[in-house]
């Protein structure tokens, strides 16, 4: 890391950028291009969902009844809240309020953990009755020859989403440590900004997962 651009007086500017502004915009566009690949990554699973739902419409109506609408709805609200708090963390960085960056990052991490705890209770209650992915599926409660299909797709989609939540927590813990070291201020907060973009995408994906998996009545 050769932060040797003294010509502009800002140590975080890499030598191949004209100035801090250009570096910030490049980082942000780079993050958006990564988010494009994320949309298509989850997109593959959404296509699987669409294909199997088109083939087995009754199965999806029968299976979704097994999921707890209340837990899904609470988790939706939890993620919306965490999106708000990370947006407030970015705002605190822009306004140079160091203590508030830490505070909002902590709340966001807490809400992300709440999401995972609720998801843990959902998963374990399903495991207990033999609702497992693929050939491990042993639940007898759904009278349909393709009963394992819905929950295999459910586990893949919510599992990949859950992995994103866990990765998000890891990145935010790292941001918290760096914030406490005074790494971010109103002229340099790029890591907080692009982590927030990532976190909002995790929220966005859940906004589609919730009605498609839980609310088929």
């Amino acid at each position, binding site marked *: 890391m050769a932060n040797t651009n003294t010509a502009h007086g*800002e140590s975080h500017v890499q030598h191949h950028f004209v100035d801090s502004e250009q570096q910030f915009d490049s980082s942000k566009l780079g993050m958006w291009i990564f988010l494009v690949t994320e949309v298509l990554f989850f997109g593959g699973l959404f296509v699987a969902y669409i*294909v199997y739902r088109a083939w087995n419409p009754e199965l999806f109506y029968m299976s979704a009844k097994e999921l707890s609408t209340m837990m899904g709805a609470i988790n939706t609200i939890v993620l919306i809240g965490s999106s708000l708090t990370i947006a407030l963390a970015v705002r605190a960085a822009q306004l140079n309020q160091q203590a508030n960056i830490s505070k909002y990052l902590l709340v966001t991490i807490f809400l992300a953990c709440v999401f995972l705890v609720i998801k843990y209770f959902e998963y374990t209650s399903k495991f207990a009755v033999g609702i497992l992915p693929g050939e491990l599926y042993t639940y007898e409660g759904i009278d349909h020859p393709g009963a394992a299909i819905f929950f295999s797709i459910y586990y893949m989609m919510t599992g990949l989403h859950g992995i994103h939540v866990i990765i998000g927590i890891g990145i935010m813990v790292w941001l918290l440590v760096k914030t406490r070291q005074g790494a971010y201020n109103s002229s340099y907060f790029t890591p907080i900004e692009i982590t*927030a973009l990532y976190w909002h995408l995790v929220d*966005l994906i859940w906004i589609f997962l919730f009605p498609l998996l839980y609310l088929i009545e």
Partner: protein
Amino acid sequence: MSEHNHHVIDLKYLLGAAGALVVLTVITVAAAYMDIPRPFDLITALTLAFGKATIVAAVFMGLIWDKKINTMALLFSILFFFIMIGITLLDTLFRDRPFWVWN
């Protein structure tokens, strides 16, 4: 030297977006219990989901105030996602019998 170009999103937009998202979530759940006939139940749920997604992208992700190229990136990802759906369905919707992996 760079602060002046970063748009600080007004607090009322952030709180308003969060409030709107909570209200739309409640409406989404209520709509699911209303026994809307198929396929309009799915259309309602997806319309509400796209509405919520637009709020997150526009306000929380700051696309309203951001460079247009970032919005373009998101729109192109959605376009190519729809192309992926379309081309796949051209195959799977016109098969003689469904293909099941596990049964």
